[in-house]
């Protein structure tokens, strides 16, 4: 039934596009109807939650940061990205930051937002610190050996590739496509957010996440 509805929506959207490409009005609404193709929820509740990876990296102060130790018993969001990413990485981190500010102060302080770089050569502790300060000064930024970061991401079902140079000599990095939320009750990664999750999605769900509940 759901699949049928989805197929119908796509057909309708396609028809709308054809219409507007020919018609006189170009008010920008077709763009909105295309995006409704992705009419699924931003969050996935995992049947088999992820174990929090045993991960020790370097924080923005240049000090070792043990993910399991530092985030034990705390609601935690983990995202893999890089600061030279102009689009999805800052959008994801800003969406979380704006939603977080709407929590009561004590819950803001309790929540751990952890940004793990996938581009550790360029994202030094200082570079990460500067970037995160512009988003959420409380956010934790981690850098270290790429192989260590990649292995931790892999254990959370996230594939990232080592930065490489393209034919113009520019460095191409990859970011994770998902944010993993860990429960303060179980320390397990029980929720996944796709990159189309909005401020509103996080605003609605964070009050549940800080309690370890399902959104």
């Amino acid at each position, binding site marked *: 039934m759901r699949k049928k509805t989805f197929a119908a929506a796509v057909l309708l959207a396609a028809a709308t596009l054809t*219409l507007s490409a*020919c018609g006189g009005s170009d008010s920008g609404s077709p763009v909105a109807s295309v995006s409704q193709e992705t009419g699924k929820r931003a969050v996935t509740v995992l049947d088999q939650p992820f174990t929090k990876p045993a991960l020790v990296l370097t924080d923005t102060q240049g000090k070792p940061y043990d993910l399991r130790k530092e985030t034990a018993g705390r609601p935690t969001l983990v995202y893999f990205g890089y600061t030279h990413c102009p689009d*999805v990485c800052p959008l994801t981190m800003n*969406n979380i930051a704006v939603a977080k500010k709407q929590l009561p102060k004590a819950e803001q302080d309790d929540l751990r937002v952890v940004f793990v770089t996938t581009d550790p050569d360029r994202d030094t502790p200082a570079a990460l610190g500067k970037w995160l300060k512009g988003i959420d000064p409380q956010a934790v930024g981690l850098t270290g050996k790429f192989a260590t970061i990649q292995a931790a991401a892999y254990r959370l079902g996230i594939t990232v590739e080592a930065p490489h140079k393209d034919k113009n000599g520019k460095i191409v990095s990859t970011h994770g496509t998902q944010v993993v939320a860990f429960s303060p009750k179980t320390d397990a990664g029980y929720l996944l957010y796709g990159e189309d999750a*909005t401020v509103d999605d996080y605003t609605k769900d964070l009050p549940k996440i800080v309690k370890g509940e399902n959104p």
Partner: protein
Amino acid sequence: MRPIRSARLVAVPATAVAGALLLAACGSDTDGRAELSVQAAYIPQPVSDTMAAGFLTIVNKGDAEDELTSVTSPAAGQVTLHETVGSSMEQVSSLDVPAHGRLVFKSGGNHLMFEMLKNKPVQGATVTVRLHFAASDPLEVEIPVKSATYNPKTGH
């Protein structure tokens, strides 16, 4: 549930036919040129002082395709075109604007990348860009800078 389902099955082909009819009607006024315009342009306020992403839609109402070949801006040392491939982005030298179609730049997909910005774009400001095409004359666009979390679907 059943009655709704059968109603939808009727409605969908009807709409598709209407779309096809209009498309056919369009094909008749041929003058063989692209007719380009820009809509829904925005730059999310960047975190970085020197780098930003930009999004817009180029609409082509004409009968010929065109190609976006470069973008320039007095605000940036360099503006490049990028496609998102998987979870990394790749610079491309040009992008097609199909006849009676559109070239869409949106978050998670194609984007303009502004580098070596002279000033950090702040919300409320505008950034002037010039779009250069293979066939059509350049288009100059004033792109508004929106909040860092601006979502074109909701408009905030």
